[in-house]
């Protein structure tokens, strides 16, 4: 069953990553930035996927903390790993765009800093789970709640504080030709997130089952 699901993941990922450049290539050139603006089509979706993952992680952690459901803990750890993966994509594609648009790789402005901090919070979450010893899932769930509290702040920071980062108004005011590829990438990234999360949750479930068998063998 797992292998069938993985074939689905691979097929979807392949379709998405093969079609995306074609769509992106079709998209019109942006007048001032030109070709490099096309990084936007996977920079924005990667951050969107990261925010969704961070929210899912925070909510799943809250459910785990207050209701004690094991499955939500597995969803939380899967989402936290994906936050780090999508965040890495965003953090690498961003500077590549900035090098051309701003002339520097990195700017210490409100939004970039907060996004980096958010990414680091989820790395800290994974570190705590890895090295915290037994019982660290609960502690990590507390950390994830604090991480989630930072998400709306990152979103607002760009509109509230003065910054060089394009504001969140950019997306609703896009020309129609740019909107299609953006939505395609956005849906693709979210689909990838869901599928990767399912696979990761499955891994965690199997691990728990293995541990259970070992414990029973010990008794």
């Amino acid at each position, binding site marked *: 069953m797992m292998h069938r699901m993985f074939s689905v993941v691979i097929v979807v990922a392949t379709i998405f990553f093969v079609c995306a450049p074609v769509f992106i290539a079709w998209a019109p050139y942006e007048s001032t930035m030109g070709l490099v603006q096309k990084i936007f089509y996977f920079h924005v979706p990667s951050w969107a996927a990261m925010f969704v993952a961070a929210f899912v992680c925070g909510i799943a952690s809250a459910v785990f*903390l*207050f209701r004690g459901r094991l499955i939500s803990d597995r969803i939380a750890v899967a989402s936290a790993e994906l936050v780090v993966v999508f965040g890495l994509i965003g953090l690498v594609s961003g500077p590549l765009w900035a090098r051309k648009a701003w002339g520097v790789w990195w700017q210490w402005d409100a939004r970039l*800093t*907060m996004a980096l*901090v958010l990414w*680091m*919070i989820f790395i*800290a979450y994974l*570190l*705590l789970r890895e*090295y*915290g*010893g037994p*019982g*660290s899932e*609960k*502690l990590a*769930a*507390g*950390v994830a*709640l*604090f*991480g989630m*509290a*930072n998400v709306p*702040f990152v979103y607002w920071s760009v509109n509230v504080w003065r910054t060089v980062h394009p504001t969140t108004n950019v997306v609703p005011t896009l020309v129609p030709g740019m909107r299609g590829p953006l939505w395609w990438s956005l849906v693709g990234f979210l689909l990838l997130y869901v599928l990767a999360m399912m696979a990761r949750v499955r891994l965690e479930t199997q691990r728990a089952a293995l541990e259970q068998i070992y414990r029973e063998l010990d008794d």
Partner: protein
Amino acid sequence: MRRFFTVALLIMRKDLRVETRSRELFLTTLFFSVSTVLVFAFGFVRDGRPVENAVAGILWIAIAFAGTLALGRTFERERYHDVLRALLLAPVDRPAIYVGKLLGILALLAAVEVVIVPLVALLFQAPLFRQPILTFLLLSLGTLGFSAVGTLFGAMLVRARSRDVLLPVLLYPITIPVIIAGVRGIAVLLQPEVDVAMARAWIGMLVFFDVVFITLSLWTFEPVMTE
């Protein structure tokens, strides 16, 4: 509600009594933050003058480092004879224990700041006391936000392995918003012309994060501390 604060004050008094008898935490933390300031003085003073805006950063880094050290030591003390577990077994509200520990940490950090802030002002010729109320608000709100998260994490890491490393690893990224607001706010106050509206905006941000952090901490303290 009254019982809640009685318990909290009782726990704070316990911590302060332990501290006034040994003075271990106060003296080590104070000396540590003074040495931090010294190290930064070597890094950020050129031709006898500190680099512009460096003073606000130096002050906050000294406070944050000292806070981390104090938090680690306070909860290490609670761990020795399983005091924290005994506290948690007591038939009182768990959040009251959190508030009590937070008040204890705040009192300790306030004592350290009473020494370190005038010292920084003196050593770097920084006009920190031109707007005493704004300075006080920025420092106290920033310290509150930092210790609110720090107390929660310090308490929950008592059970964890490699807690000495994990405390700063978790604490710094999460309290960065508070530190940014504190540093920027103090930097505004150090300008030749103080921009009061700007300072007030940073204070507003500190209030926002303090409220969010304290609410979340009170909320999560109980489930996180339940084994």
